[in-house]
């Protein structure tokens, strides 16, 4: 099959929003999720994205994996042509003994709009009076953000470091492309930080239903999407 796709809802939503940035472009993405322009959501720019999603629906037919790493395995074993996933998937390929740039490669923004959707997990520390505990908290924070930790961690995970001043030791071509995009400012906010989980949940339900049902038309799904954008918060 051309495209491997895990069946979990978040992966389908991720694919949809990758298409939104890559095919529709960052302006389209921001106009929808930041400006919540429902009229624009009914327009031709968004229609191309839904058309691309319909193509993806055909290309992922028979992709019965649930987890993203099982879907990645289908690519590694040569059963599938490619996968749309976050940069962390590189770790799976490396673990399987494949070398980036030789055995597999990355196509940032599907080769169209080479933008990165930046999202990160956060560490929160409770406010504590005890100076010993405060010092320990500082230590943890220092170790996490230490350049050496970042280099080792990103090398294993295959992702990009959270600091821009870190010099990566021989980054893979994939990481190199990512770093260049970051330095050129080709970054959009993650959809998670633009709309509420509630709105994202509605979008996810729509995408999941669309991808599972070949009779769900592009026009119909786009109209429902515009409805969600109109009530988004």
């Amino acid at each position, binding site marked *: 099959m051309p495209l491997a796709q895990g*069946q979990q*809802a978040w992966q389908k939503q991720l694919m949809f929003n990758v298409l939104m940035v890559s095919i529709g472009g960052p302006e389209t993405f921001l106009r929808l999720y930041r400006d919540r322009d429902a009229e624009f959501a009914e327009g031709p720019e968004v229609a191309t994205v839904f058309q691309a999603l319909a193509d993806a629906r055909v290309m992922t037919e028979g992709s019965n994996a649930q987890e993203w790493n099982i879907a990645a395995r289908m690519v590694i074993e040569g059963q599938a042509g490619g996968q749309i996933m976050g940069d962390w998937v590189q770790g799976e390929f490396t673990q399987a003994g494949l070398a980036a740039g030789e055995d597999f490669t990355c196509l940032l923004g599907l080769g169209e709009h080479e933008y990165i959707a930046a999202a990160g997990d956060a560490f929160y520390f409770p406010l504590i009076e005890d100076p010993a505990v405060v010092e320990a908290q500082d230590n943890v924070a220092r170790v996490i953000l230490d350049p050496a930790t970042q280099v080792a961690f990103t090398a294993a995970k295959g992702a990009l470091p959270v600091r821009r001043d870190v010099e990566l030791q021989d980054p893979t071509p994939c990481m190199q492309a990512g770093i260049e995009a970051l330095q050129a400012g080709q970054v959009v906010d993650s959809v998670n930080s633009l709309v*509420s989980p*509630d709105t994202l949940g509605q979008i996810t339900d729509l995408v*999941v239903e669309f991808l*599972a049902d070949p009779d769900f038309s592009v026009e119909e799904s786009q109209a429902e999407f515009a409805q969600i954008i109109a009530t988004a918060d």
Partner: protein
Amino acid sequence: MPDIASRRSLVKNLNAKIAAIPMMLTATVVFVGCTLWTVVYSFTNSRLLPGGDWVGLAQYERLWGTRRWLISVENLAIYGFLMLVFSLVIGFLLAAIIDQRIRFEDAFRTIFLYPYALSFIVTGLVWQWLLNPEFGIQAAVRSMGFETFAFDPLYNSDLVLYGVIVAGLWHGTGLVMCLMLAGLRGIDEDVWKASRVDGIPAWKTYIFIVIPMMRPVFVTTLVLITASIIKLYDLVIAQTGGGPGLSSEVPAKFVFDAMFVSQNLAQGFAASTMMLVAVIFVIIPWAYLEFGGKKRG
């Protein structure tokens, strides 16, 4: 002296009354209290945390306009109906067969009841593997030489629900069988002798004499099955994750996702209130029939 009499009846069985206090508190505060709290907050626009403004029925309007909820309700209706019918029929038939004084009765009873000892998560996972085309039944039959054999219910929107029902039946019929068997054993041997003397065939005796006599067992079984139907959640999570698409979504999963994934508490509360209403619609007529008017016994 009515005053003393009433005080005496209060002190009477004091130990038992004190012992019942924790359960009474649990019932009133936890069950009734939390239920009321949930219903009240379903009229607000609470998001991650309860609070927000009063929005009347807006959450319910949105709920019944959401296709995923409608699919969930329809799925539960189909699942519930088939589950109820088949687990009662299969459970009773198994019990009737075992009741023929067959050999190794204990062994069969154990085999049939064993699935009930497994959690729904394990059941769901086992059946997910069995029905998975890559390494389940389809792969096994194909490896025997039938190359074109296709059996892939979990990845087919029209069939997935029946895959879940099969797993649910496998899990639940053993218990129904045991309850039915206990009911059958409770029927007086003389009833059978009398019907045999009258020359009534065995199946007629079952349907017209034994089953009506087993009414209390049926009521208990019905309550147990219905409860397991309404709370259907973990089986779907383990077996299909609600997919493919939305075709095996159920209301309990909708509630969980609304509350903890979409962080929209009020929407989840509205959905769970609708589930409660459905339960009440089932329970009230039944309770009226069962306890209404006359004393039992």
